[in-house]
């Protein structure tokens, strides 16, 4: 206890000195959150898996064309028209860029190490690649600019800190993280108003973003009752509850319609 007090005291002192030395600069580097009491970890022997597809019910959605005329550099990056990725329909009738994650009390009491591998978000052709990403809390998000033009990265979160940083061409990758859960954080580029991405931040590794096949798989889950949530940029969220036993694999499909969603 005494040690902890001493530690806190020293931290505060360091902070004071740090602030004293760094006044005038942008707010100093985010501090690692203080260590939390360790929770349980998942027993891989009994871990369960949930998998499924995200379907689109209404044939071919209308695709909105993006006009990039405001920045000639952006136009040069593309041959032919560019379409909005708001609703990205795969050839097999499934939806891409749907963020699927686990919500539920069943995970309370567990703690999950922060992945050391960063999530990469690239700005390429004046679009965000990939269009939607997920990250665990405090997991590093590495933002690249592959365009020969200047972008600004401007997340507008509710539960986390807002920031807005400029990235000129050839800028060093920008590494940031979000310490609090938030689904989803919209991120935009004010220079190129059509650019928009979303970051889903949850405190555990049970999330994924659907790809070209429109499928998802969440594995390594401890047995229990879960609410699985699928979030789509235009159509909102769909929830389903699932109970998985030890080492069980369950299939859960989601489907969205323009007017809302059906299971």
């Amino acid at each position, binding site marked *: 206890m005494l040690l902890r007090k001493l530690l806190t005291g020293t931290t505060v002192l360091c*902070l004071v000195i740090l602030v004293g030395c760094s*006044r005038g600069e942008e707010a100093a580097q985010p501090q690692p*959150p203080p260590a939390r009491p360790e929770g349980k970890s998942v027993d891989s022997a009994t871990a369960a898996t949930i998998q499924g597809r995200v379907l689109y019910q209404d044939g071919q959605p209308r695709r909105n064309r993006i006009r990039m005329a405001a920045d000639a550099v952006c136009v040069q990056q593309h041959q032919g028209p560019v379409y909005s990725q708001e609703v990205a329909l795969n050839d097999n009738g499934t939806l891409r860029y749907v963020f699927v994650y686990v919500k539920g009390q069943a995970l309370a009491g567990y703690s999950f190490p922060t992945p050391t591998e960063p999530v990469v978000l690239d700005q390429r052709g004046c679009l965000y690649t990939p269009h939607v990403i997920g990250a665990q809390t405090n997991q590093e998000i590495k933002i690249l600019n592959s365009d020969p033009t200047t972008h600004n990265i401007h997340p507008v979160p509710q539960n*986390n800190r*807002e920031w807005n940083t400029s990235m000129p061409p050839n800028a060093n990758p920008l590494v940031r993280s979000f310490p*609090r859960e938030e689904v989803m954080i919209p991120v935009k580029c004010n220079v190129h108003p059509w650019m928009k991405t979303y970051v889903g931040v949850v405190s555990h590794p049970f999330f994924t973003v659907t790809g070209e096949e429109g499928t998802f798989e969440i594995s390594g889950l401890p047995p229990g009752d879960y609410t699985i949530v699928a979030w789509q940029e235009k159509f909102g969220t769909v929830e389903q509850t699932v109970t998985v036993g030890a080492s069980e694999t369950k299939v859960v499909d989601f489907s969205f319609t323009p007017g809302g969603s059906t299971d």
Partner: protein
Amino acid sequence: MPDQPHDDPIVGRSLSGPLLVASLILLATLAWALYDEFYGLRPWKDYQQHFVHLYTQHLQERIQEQSAAEEELRRSPDYQRLEQALEEARAGVAPEVERIDREVNDLNRRISALTDVFATARGQVTAMIYEAETSPAEEDKEQILEEVERIRRQGFDARLPVPDGTMETLHYTYDELEDEYDQLRERRAFLLAHRVEVTQHVKELEEQRQTYRNQHIIGLAETQLRGLLTEARNLELEIKQIHVQDTELVDRCESCHLGVLEGRRVGIELTAAGIGGERLFASHPAPELLAIHDPERFGCSPCHGGNGRAISSPIQAHGRYRHWLWPLSYPENYQAGCQQCHARDMVLEHAGVLNRGKELYRLRGCIGCHRYEGFDNEPERLQAVRLQMRELELQRAGYELEIQRSIQRAENPDTPLEEARRLFARATNLRVTISNLEAEQEQLQLRARDLMREIKLVGPNLKDVRLKLRRDWIPVWLHNPHAFRPTTKMPRFRLQEEEIRAISAFIWQSGTSGEMPPQPRGDPGRGRELFETHGCLACHALGEGEDAVGSRFAANLSRVGEKVNYDYLVRWIHNPRQRTRPYCPREKRDLTPEDYAKHGLPFRFDFEHSTCPNDGAELQVQNMTVMPSLRLTWAEARDIATFLLTQRSQAPETYAGADFMDDPGLFERGQSLVRNYGCAGCHEIAGLEEEERIGTDLTTEGSKPIERIDFALLTHQAEREGWYNHAGFFERKLADPAIFDQGKVKEPLERLRMPQPNLTDADITALTTFLLGSVESGYGFPPQYIYQPTDRGRDIQEGWWIVTKYNCMGCHQIRIGQPSMLMTLPRYQTPEGREKLPPSLIGVGARLDPEWLAAFLANPALSAANLHRNGVRSYLEVRMPTFGFTVREIQTLVRFFGALSGQAQPYIRPQLEPLTNREWVMARELFTHPAAPCLRCHATGDPLHDRNATAPNFLLVKERLKPGWTRRWILDPASIIPGTAMPSGLFRRQGNRWVFSGPLPPSLRDYRGDHAELLVRYMFYLTRQEQRRLSARLASPGSVESRRISLNLVESH
């Protein structure tokens, strides 16, 4: 026989003798008490009786004069005509008026009779309805309402008078009664309105007669005077007092000074001569002061001093005794009373003596040794700003720490979401707060820089002595500055020969050594011409004693040729602010070229290069003199310097050699003496830049307890001779600062240090007045009386400090009735000379666009390239100098002029309606009309033409002038600037508009608009091309025709 009783004292001795004596004493005491009660302690009764006597006499005389005057008036034909018209009009309307009056009279009687009946009826009905409304039961309600209805129908009897004098009785229902009542009242109102209409004409004639009378008879009417006479005869002998409740002020001065406010109350003026030569009964001599300081609210003693409650004797009442702290001001110092509440006003209307005192305090360098709140306080303000900057820095660090902590806590997953959001918001808000702080910090930083520039010293920079002065002259000067230059600010110190040698040597040796770039000689004749015409005499003077011409604001240059180094003088005249070395306040020394070379920088320092290369501190880059740059060419500066070298009364070579000044052994002794005498209060001296003032703070010297003022061995003499008071001390000290050392045995360094300032008696009175008024808040006057103006008043108050600091009044007239220095010079007395005077600044706030004015003040050349000219009045020889004003000084000046003219701030330039094509044609014709040859006098930018121009270029109008003023100006320039070259009468009034006075050009004949207005709009839309076109048109052969027309015009007049 019975024994003779012993000698019984009761029986045998009579006490009647002592008793008689005692009772006589008692009686005498009673008589004395009664006498004192009614006379002895009531000297004011005598005064009052005396006043009544003199006042009634005076009134009687006046009545006689007035009745004679009125009689004369009544006999004048004009008055009789008015009188007759009035009589006729009265007679004409008399029958009608009489008829109306009779009917109204009848109506009145009838109405008053009916009112009784109606009021009773209405009361009864109302009361019953109220009863119905408040009664709880429905049936009761209905019953009562039915009863009301019955009464209303049943009606009332009324006995009414009939015009013939009899009475009649009529019966009315309630409704009928009400109708009748209303009708009668309406009829009466109608009749009364009608009566006003009928007598309207009579009223007008009466007014006319009254106006005529007022115009021809000055003062009160005879009847009014008779009223006053009756009042005066019946004057009650009593204590007359002013009691101001708010401040618990009681002044009974009027118990004796009965006439002092009487004039103000009743509207007559009592002069001492008019009231039997008794000054004490005369009216207050400054009614304009009373108008802004209502005696009922301010009383008397707050301004004048004295013991306002005391009435037992003049000495008591005037507070001229030892234990009264605030004695009545002496007549010559009475303006000290103004200073008590107007300490922050540098220039105060109606207080010339006080203003002079303040000016002297600053100008003669009193301020070099004696701090005075508000005077030359730039160093203090600089310190305050620096302190404020440090505070903001700390505040900011605190906020940054708090942001860190908030974010850290918010990002901790254990913090509840709501709390986290609040903390994020808090961090965001703090970041915004910091950015606001940054804006504030930026302002403070600029302010600090500005304040460095605003600091000025009374005396010259002594670091430059080696470059500037003839060495051998210095000890002669120190010996007695007044012998060399009687009007100098430099006071005479009581120095021993040895001290003079040491001080001279120190000053000489501490000076910057080096060589000034050599300058070729100029033309002294041209130099004199430039000196006399460019405005140098607005601050300097030439000639000694009675022959001196020019101002005493700065040095009299009569003998400057004896002391000065030519090369230095040229540079000084070219730009006096240019230092030889910049001063670094952090290192407390002048920087050398080596300091710059160390950092690979050129030795360059000015407002753009004002940071120290060693440590980034803000440097003092200019000489701390108020002398501005006249933007002269080097050749002009050389001419003037060459002329000034001829100003001498003895050859410079005749000064005795002073080789001791190079003796290093004298340096330390000299330095300690210089420190002791406080030379650094007025001069910049190497190593002593941060010295404090050596004298007493005089801000509240006037309220210093008399026991703490050291009359030394003269105390008894002062008491005996009646000058043991503040005024006595100040006057004697200023006349002879050593006086209170008389008779004392002191070491040289312990003697009084104050030097001899060589003041005239008038100067001493002015300074004494100023010091007497320099009292603590609330000393003898209520603190809430202190003048603390807002907005307009404050802008004026602040502006005067800058105006007097830089002597704007040397060249410009700023107050009505107060001439500038230049206006008094012989050169400017001729009609041609007057046109060469700098413009009067009266009303300039209404004239000039403030933004333009700000730009002009920053650079009066109005050009970055051509500095050697006047930006506006290129035709004037007097040069408007560049003062190097700081942003705040410019802002203060602009606000000052705006406030003097009552202008709203900030100024938003009004949008004038653009001209139609037809209006362009018309305006052009007006503008170039032979009867208004505007371009003849106004500059056009064509050098050939502008040689003879005497007015500014029209192209400046749009940016420079305000349209409203421009219109007033072209209508009647003489009423704005008397004596201006611009003629009045260009327009004449026609109904509601002004039309051109000359023969109307055809295009304008059926124009219904205002011609002046049209011309103003034209001027505000005038372009360079348009002006060129006009000039060409004037120069074309057609103009011969126009000139002929103008000649005809002159002839026909």
